[in-house]
């Protein structure tokens, strides 16, 4: 990782798809450190919105049996980036649910580094991204299972929908495993809406634009399930999606 004062370049793996122009405006970053003591639970919601670039850099340290639930909603007109580094002690649990919506000219980026440092910790990452014409969504996520972190359960579920041929999605889920008896799954898909479902809905009388909206709402909503104040967050996501369509 580059030091916090120097603006990264495209040669830095974690920044190769970033909107560096937008980052320059808010650099240098102030990294935020969060420590959750053994056995305790925290929830946090980050909403990145507005016309100015948004950048967050979180370092989360989870004690034994601690849990942390992070929800991210990125909906702004400007580029946004959130980097999350998590270190899990034994039996700790980390959940990330992130929804990114990127319109023309915006790059929405999530970079995670989840380190399983001790046995039987669980991490789940659910990322749902929608890019409209001229928008870019990025996910760069690494799950690192250190030596001795046996019984790790780590999951990355990353899906992106492109609304236009000029929309871009970059997804790079990575796994590095140095322990035994590890259950790690990563699914990653960039796609379009299910044509069968769209026809089924049309056959019931739903015009295509309404059918697409319903399906995209459901797609985005999945990432925000269980968030603190979920209803308000889902409303905000729905409104942002409508503005994007």
């Amino acid at each position, binding site marked *: 990782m580059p030091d916090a004062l120097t603006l990264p370049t495209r040669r830095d793996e974690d920044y190769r798809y970033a909107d560096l122009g937008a980052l320059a405006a808010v650099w240098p970053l102030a990294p935020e450190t969060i420590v959750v003591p053994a056995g305790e639970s925290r929830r946090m919601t980050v909403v990145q919105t507005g016309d100015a670039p948004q950048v967050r850099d979180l370092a989360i340290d989870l004690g034994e049996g601690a849990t942390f639930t992070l929800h991210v909603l990125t909906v702004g007109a400007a580029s946004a980036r959130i980097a999350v580094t998590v270190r899990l002690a034994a039996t700790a649990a980390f959940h990330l649910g992130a929804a990114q919506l990127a319109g023309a000219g915006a790059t929405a980026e999530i970079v995670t580094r989840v380190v399983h440092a001790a046995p039987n910790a669980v991490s789940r990452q659910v990322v749902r991204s929608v890019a409209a014409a001229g928008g870019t969504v990025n996910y760069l996520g690494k799950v690192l299972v250190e030596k001795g972190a046996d019984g790790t359960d780590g999951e990355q579920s990353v899906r992106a929908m492109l609304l236009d041929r000029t929309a871009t999605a970059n997804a790079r889920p990575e796994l590095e495993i140095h322990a035994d008896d590890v259950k790690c799954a990563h699914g990653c898909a960039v796609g379009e809406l299910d044509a069968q479902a769209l026809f089924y809905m*049309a*056959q*019931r*009388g739903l015009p295509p634009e309404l059918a697409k909206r319903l399906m995209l709402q459901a797609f985005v909503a999945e990432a925000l399930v269980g968030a603190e104040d979920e209803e308000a967050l889902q409303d905000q996501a729905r409104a942002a999606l409508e503005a994007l369509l």
Partner: protein
Amino acid sequence: MMLIIDNLHATVADKPILKGLSLTINAGEVHAIMGPNGAGKSTLGYTLGGRPGYEVTGGTATFDGEDLFALEPHERAAAGLFLGFQYPVEIPGVSFVQFLRESLNAQRKSRGEEPLSGGEFLKLAREKAALLKLDMDMLKRPVNVGFSGGEKKRAEMVQMGILDPKLAILDETDSGLDIDALRIVGDGINAVMRRPDKAVLLITHYQRLLDYVKPDFVHVLAGGRIVRTGGAELALELEERGYEAVAA
């Protein structure tokens, strides 16, 4: 006349499936189409419904005086065409209630009718779910997700009840139903569709649904065409002698 299909030719993935199919259905009638696997029964339903990939290469279909093939799939639905799917589609994250209310209101809007309020819609949905003995709570769940085969088919019929179409094309609605569910579905079809201003086209393999929903006409579809038409007794004959003997 509600539906006139004249010399319909259709391809799926460039493969000719329907090869000159003609069929006329009047208001008040129940028709059954029977035929062996792969005959093109589902293709007929999908082609009339306007499913992408099912291409009309010849012939016409006139629905209530309108050129059916000039309409988009959702416009065909709003015109009163309902297709009960052989394999209903699962839509994760979208509840039946939301989906059906938006669908019904979209249909109503295109017909110049006022939308139903949330309360009015729920009352209607509850009434139709009760008719098909489907727990109303199931309609609060995502569309068809986690439903058994029989539940999906009953949910199709609940949707038909809510949308109240003029013509229902029901593609193997009887498959996957046990004998009790078959009677419930049969009664449901009769309650919703047995009216002088409505018509039904049942696509089925078996005689058994026809015991509950008595057809006025039975057609045998083979090789992409209707090869024989008769009354209800034709279904019995098919059951006894098989398609090959009857269609020959």
